[in-house]
């Protein structure tokens, strides 16, 4: 259905355009500018062409960081999406407990990234942290600062704790909008719980699920603050994700050219993967219906 037209609407959008131009497009152009030049300070620039891009793309350091990112996002999606759906399915649909559950679910989302990192940093310490201490007393040799597996596990658990709620809330919104008649019909058809999920609930929450996957993918692929606060990219380089690597290159080593090229590549990868996710999920079970025929 087309929207009503009104040329005045453009005036309302204009401030956002200006804002986006200043906050995104201009810095992005600066980054492009850096990525194709070389400088030795003093504001003197030399044309470098695609040299930085070639260097970054060929470096093991970049490959390793990219690999870590992909692994991390995969783990995050593999845990948070099914877990989020599962929790959403178990939440009550009406009654007194609905607002209570929703508020509890929303709580982790309200906590800033760096605070989450700090909380877990303390929580996981073997000497004073509840988690670390408990694990130690159970005989588990847990130390996120020295053990690669422990570091990864802590970051993953931290992210799951922080963000699964988002998936839950989105899926819940999708689930409650399914008309009661679908469940009743399924009961009458003798459908099992699994069939109800597969043939009614999943198809009906497909759209919100797509949004959840996209949001969680983009966000987990850009992870920075939590590992930065918790492990600082260590032990070794084991939790040095692209974003951390980027900052190290740009600010730690002051290699602005490679850093700019890297951030552009990073940006394009996110764009590309998001587009892939979107098309795949959108076309899953395609044969689009005429939207005007939809009854609900």
């Amino acid at each position: 259905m087309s929207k009503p037209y009104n040329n005045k609407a453009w005036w309302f959008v204009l401030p956002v355009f200006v804002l986006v131009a200043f906050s995104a497009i201009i810095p992005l152009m600066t980054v492009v500018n850096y990525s194709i030049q070389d400088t030795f300070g003093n504001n003197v620039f030399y044309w470098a062409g695609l040299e930085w891009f070639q260097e970054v793309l060929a470096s093991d350091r970049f490959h390793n960081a990219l690999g870590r990112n992909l692994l991390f996002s995969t783990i995050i999606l593999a845990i948070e999406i099914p877990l989020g759906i599962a929790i959403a399915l178990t939440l009550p649909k009406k009654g007194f407990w609905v607002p209570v559950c929703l508020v509890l679910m929303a709580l982790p989302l309200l906590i800033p990234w760096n605070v989450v990192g700090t909380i877990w940093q303390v929580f996981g310490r073997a000497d004073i942290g509840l988690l670390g201490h408990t694990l130690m007393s159970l005989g588990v040799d847990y130390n996120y600062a020295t053990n690669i597996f422990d570091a990864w596990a802590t970051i993953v658990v931290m992210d799951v704790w922080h963000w699964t709620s988002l998936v839950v809330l989105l899926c819940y919104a999708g689930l409650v909008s399914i008309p009661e008649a679908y469940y009743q019909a399924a009961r009458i058809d003798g459908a099992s719980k699994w069939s109800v999920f597969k043939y009614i609930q999943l198809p009906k929450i497909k759209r919100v699920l797509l949004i959840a996957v996209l949001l969680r993918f983009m966000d987990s692929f850009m992870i920075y603050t939590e590992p930065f606060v918790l492990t600082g990219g260590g032990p070794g380089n084991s939790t040095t994700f692209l974003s951390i690597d980027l900052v190290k290159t740009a600010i730690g080593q002051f290699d602005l050219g490679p850093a700019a090229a890297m951030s552009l590549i990073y940006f394009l990868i996110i764009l590309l993967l998001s587009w892939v996710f979107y098309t795949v999920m959108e076309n899953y079970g395609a044969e689009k219906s005429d939207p005007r025929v939809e009854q609900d």
Partner: protein
Amino acid sequence: MARISLDQIAHSFNPRPSSEADYALKSIHYQWDDGGAYALLGPSGCGKTTLLNIISGLLTPSNGRVLYDERDMTLLTPEQRNIAQVFQFPVIYDTMTVAENLAFPLVNRGVERAEINKRVAEMLETLELEEKANRRAQGLTADEKQKISLGRGLVRYDVSAILFDEPLTVIDPHMKWQLRTKLKTLHEQLGYTMIYVTHDQTEALTFADKVVVMLEGNVLQVGTPEELFDQPAHTFVGYFIGSPGMNIFPGTVVGNTLKMGSVDVPLNKGYAECAGKTEIGIRPEFIRLTTASEAGSRGLKFNLRSVEDVGRLKIVRGQAEGVALNVVVDENSDIPAEPYAVFDAERVCVYQNSMLADGDILSTESRT
């Protein structure tokens, strides 16, 4: 298939009902014969859908029992009762094809593949959906979707009953005719007990052998379409059935004469005096408009207000002796310049305290 009995069914959505007003269903006692076509007719909020859901097992009644033949089913699920139900909005499984939709209830019940294929093929033919068998059900029109919902019930062969909850609401008029006729034919062919909930009198009357008219959680009358039309047991039934409904107005009846102002209208039955209010009911179809000379002494001078030509008929609205009357006349009949209304004495119903007088007609099932 089974005979379905409702034994003193009452239902309240309030877990601790304190007064009768808390009950969506007051007290329903009725038996649905095996293989009958029934309609539950009434305005929104009369409890008809609640009653249907109690029969199907989607809802457990607060009081009373539901029996299929002699078996107590009150606490059993729809699946255990083996019924099928079609809802107001078509329910289809979007990701499945038409054929898979029809096969779904059989697959769930572990029917053999060969048998499933055979029955689905038959059902596709019955519903005239063969060409769309392998299309995804999502893109179909509303009436096709509704046929699939129906087909998922019919394909099971052994269902105890098929229940319909206003199944034609979202269907266009032309398709309504086709689907309704299809239902009627299927009922004759397959002999399932069918119970059809609707607020639309045409749907109820044309579909059912017996219509149950409900109001505010009570059954007002159970009868064949003719009975409901000719002898409405309650003024509400008279008003609700027919378009326009029955003319109902307060009147004075002395013996076998109806006093309308200065005019005495003869009735063909005598009525005893009654303490409460007396009302007269006459259907617009049974009033004739004619000239003064032809009408004679029983003619009521008719002040004509409007004539609505609705094609097949004309609806004449006006007043006689201070009473608003609707009259229905044939498309070709002429209305005299100074019309007089004449009641068909056979068809005048007298109501005392809203109930049809001579009161043995009201079915005992509705009173408890």
